[in-house]
């Protein structure tokens, strides 16, 4: 439900917009904060998982008898320990299949068995004693290969959904999506210039530094506790309970501090396994993934193959845009974000004729899971590369070409709905006027830019706010704090109550203490859970005013709340000394007992988000090595609650995008095995690779939030891929259509261009 109380643009904030210290700061700089792997329980066992060495294999049988006999082994589990309780829910069935293979192992690293033992050494030894009889099957990891008619089919019951007529032959194409409006063919006929290009991007991993960890304790009576690092402990509770066939209320999940997620911790992997081991052993069991397991069996995002065609008139108006987006989803249907890629690809433009077709494609890779603005960065890379090329062909400055065709209020978006107030134009204008845009470039340097979009959403949140007798505040929220959200929650509550930030403390409640909260995803927490905090504070204010009214013997509506005090609403209400929050709280035992505010809802009206990025890159023409020399992020935040953490989201997203553009990739061998499952060979950006990342926060209020807040977490990863590709093209004169643009690939591009130039000259 969108709020009626749209933001008051003249409102002066006391706390929102300042930069206070985060409440969990000291815990996190002293090593005291407890992350997933830091928990222990009395008598806990070590859980370890046996994983498939094959990319695709039928599991004929699993013999665990020798492992079970090993001294110190307390439980061994396989697919047989997960009877199907999913009741026709195909998504849940696939999740269960992913955490423990059933008929087939579908990718290298797919879990096939697990043990719980008294020591790590015994657990390791036990895994070696488990005999799995595999029938190795042909595999496919490349998205284009997987779509070929002769490709090995992963699921012979898979008939492409969304095509007419329904196919008669099973294939790896799970679903086809189509979005758009107008008539693209007619639009292309009106075009003076058309650019058509194909692109490929490799899968990348979210790359959180903390591997998944879970400590489970389950009793034979079906009651259970779980401690784990996740973006959504309510999701973990619901999914685990349903997989294990127990009542949801019997499982209590406590969320540890979380060492990064970026979408990768929005599902379960080891949690149901730890619970099942604990149930069988009747002892607490702790499972912690290794980095190798994280790369092979969690994440990643899709690898893609895309075709883009855009036509323009010679005055620079886009007449038609058409794109095809093929995304890997791993071995299960509906897991790739192909639809979000297709929906977001052209969202930054005002288009009369647009079509985007998405394909969700199965292959023998780990099950694809969300990664920050899922699906959008790769589509944006393809589209914004073509846009830059068109601008050059037109002889127009790319920024002016983008401004001319930018989506604005009233534009029908490429995915359908008509935009309300949006901040794209403002980010483009700000980019054009930014000093970075006019700064001189050095030798071998090039500048690129791109604009990007993400939807943002709200979702379910539940907040409880308690006022102890000294008038300080505790706020219980159910959204895991991944990047400082406790601070923002406290700030919004302090703002509403008119008290100091230091009077408010937020905690992340466990699943038994608070109503359901959706996963921290979709850039929803500061928006949706933050708004629930505001509304819970308003609920508390109502109760505080009622206590003051009762004390004074006047009607409740004759009392108002101002800067931390209850006051008579006007002269008619009577002449009473204002009562402070502290005074009302101190009197609460005698005036009706404890005072608490609550709010629970499903938030909507999140407001879409746009960003424009500018990047300068220097290329060593001899080696192909690249160096980002300057980078600027300009994004609309609606209203920045804690500007430091908003800047942090901008910078972090940009740098993940830089890694994606330049170095990060899943490299598969011919055997379908991942060849770079470690941080040495899967190279995420390090400190010495980068310059400072400049940020500019624009504040175009979101009408769906009382302060105008928009989500900011995801959009920042959308433009970097294209901005960098455009900068590389400017520096080298070569257009790269495949990511990552690693040094060998850039060098080859430069050498090929030289050779074909020499050929032409000859």
């Amino acid at each position, binding site marked *: *439900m*969108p709020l009626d109380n749209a933001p008051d643009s003249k409102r002066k904030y006391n706390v929102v917009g300042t930069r206070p210290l985060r409440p969990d700061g000291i815990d996190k700089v002293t090593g005291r904060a407890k992350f997933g792997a830091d928990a222990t329980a009395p008598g806990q066992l070590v859980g370890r998982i046996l994983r498939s060495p094959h990319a695709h294999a039928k599991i004929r049988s699993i013999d665990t008898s020798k492992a079970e006999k090993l001294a110190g082994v307390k439980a061994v589990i396989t697919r047989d320990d997960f009877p199907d309780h999913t009741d026709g829910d195909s*998504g849940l069935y696939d999740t269960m299949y992913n955490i423990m293979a059933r008929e087939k192992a579908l990718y290298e690293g797919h879990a096939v068995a697990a043990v719980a033992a008294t020591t790590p050494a015994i657990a390791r030894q036990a895994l070696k004693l488990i005999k799995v009889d595999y029938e190795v099957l042909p595999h496919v990891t490349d998205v284009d290969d997987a779509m070929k008619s002769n490709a090995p089919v992963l699921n012979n019951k898979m008939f492409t*959904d*969304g*095509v*007419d*007529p*329904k196919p008669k032959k099973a294939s790896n194409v799970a*679903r*086809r*999506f*189509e*979005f*758009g409006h107008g008539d693209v063919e007619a639009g292309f006929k009106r075009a003076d210039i058309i650019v058509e290009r194909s692109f490929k991007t490799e899968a990348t991993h*979210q790359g959180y530094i903390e591997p998944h960890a879970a400590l489970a304790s389950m009793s034979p009576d079906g009651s259970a506790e779980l401690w784990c690092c996740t973006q959504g402990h309510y999701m973990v509770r619901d999914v685990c309970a349903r997989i294990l066939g127990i009542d949801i209320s019997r499982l209590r999940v406590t969320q540890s501090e979380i060492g990064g*997620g*970026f*979408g*990768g911790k*929005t599902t379960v992997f080891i949690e149901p396994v730890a619970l099942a081991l604990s149930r069988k052993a009747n002892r607490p069991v702790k499972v912690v993934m290794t980095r190798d397991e994280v790369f092979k069996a969690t994440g990643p995002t899709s690898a893609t193959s895309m075709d883009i065609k855009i036509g323009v008139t010679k005055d620079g108006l886009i007449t038609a845009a058409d794109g095809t987006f093929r995304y890997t989803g791993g071995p299960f249907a*509906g897991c790739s*974000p192909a*639809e*979000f890629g297709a*929906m977001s690809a052209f969202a930054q433009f005002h288009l009369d004729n647009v*079509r985007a*077709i998405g394909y969700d494609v199965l292959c023998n890779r780990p099950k694809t899971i*969300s*990664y*920050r*603005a*899922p699906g959008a960065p790769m589509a944006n890379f393809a589209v914004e590369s073509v846009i830059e090329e068109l601008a050059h062909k037109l002889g127009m400055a790319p920024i002016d070409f983008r401004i001319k065709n930018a989506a604005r209020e009233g534009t029908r978006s490429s*995915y*359908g*709905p*008509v*935009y*309300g107030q949006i901040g794209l134009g403002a980010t483009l204008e700000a980019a054009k006027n930014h000093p970075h845009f006019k700064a001189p470039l050095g030798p071998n340097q090039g500048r690129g830019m791109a604009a990007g979009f*993400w*939807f*943002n*959403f*709200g*979702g*379910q949140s539940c907040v409880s706010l308690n006022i102890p007798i000294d008038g300080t505040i505790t706020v219980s929220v159910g959204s895991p704090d991944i990047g400082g959200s406790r601070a923002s929650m406290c700030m919004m509550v302090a703002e509403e109550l008119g008290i100091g930030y230091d009077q408010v403390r937020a905690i992340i409640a466990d699943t038994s203490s608070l109503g359901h909260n959706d996963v921290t*995803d*979709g*850039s*929803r927490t500061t928006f949706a859970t933050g708004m629930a905090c505001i509304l819970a504070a308003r609920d508390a204010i109502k109760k505080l005013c009622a206590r003051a009214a009762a004390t004074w013997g006047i009607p409740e509506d004759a009392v108002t709340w101002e800067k931390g005090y209850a006051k008579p609403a006007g002269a008619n209400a009577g002449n009473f000394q204002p009562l402070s929050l502290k005074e009302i709280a101190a009197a609460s035992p005698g005036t009706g007992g404890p005072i608490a505010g609550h709010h629970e809802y*499903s938030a*909507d*009206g*999140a407001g*879409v988000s746009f960003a424009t990025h500018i990047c300068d890159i220097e290329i060593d023409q001899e080696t192909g090595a690249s160096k980002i020399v300057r980078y600027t992020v300009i994004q609309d935040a609606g209203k920045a609650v804690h500007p430091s953490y908003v800047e942090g989201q901008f910078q972090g997203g940009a740098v993940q995008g830089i890694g994606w553009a330049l170095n990060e990739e899943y490299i598969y061998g011919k055997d379908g095995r991942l060849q770079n499952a470690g941080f040495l060979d899967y190279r995420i950006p390090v400190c010495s690779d980068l310059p400072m990342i400049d940020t500019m926060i624009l504040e175009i209020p979101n009408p*769906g939030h009382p302060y105008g807040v928009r989500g900011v*977490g*995801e959009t920042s990863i959308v433009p970097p891929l294209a901005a960098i590709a455009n900068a590389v093209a400017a520096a080298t004169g070569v257009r790269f259509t495949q990511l990552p643009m690693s040094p060998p690939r850039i060098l080859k591009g430069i050498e090929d261009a030289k050779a074909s130039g020499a050929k032409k000259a000859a």
Partner: protein
Amino acid sequence: MAKVIVWGSLKPHTGGKTTVEIEARNVQELLARLGETYPGLQNQIKRGVSVSIDGLIYREGWLEPLKPDSEVFLLPRMQGG
């Protein structure tokens, strides 16, 4: 009657139309009638849809009221990172 626009690949289930008109007071009613009129859409509705009503996206919000002239887009269920 609210105007409902389905994404292109659902066309086979709506007799080739991308826009259909449905009489409904809220999203829940709209989805129910949509499923009754076009049984082929039931699978997708069960799998999860989000809607946009007059430009605003609702991930859930079954009880969201519809105006007689509302423009409703059926969208795949929103997810994020």
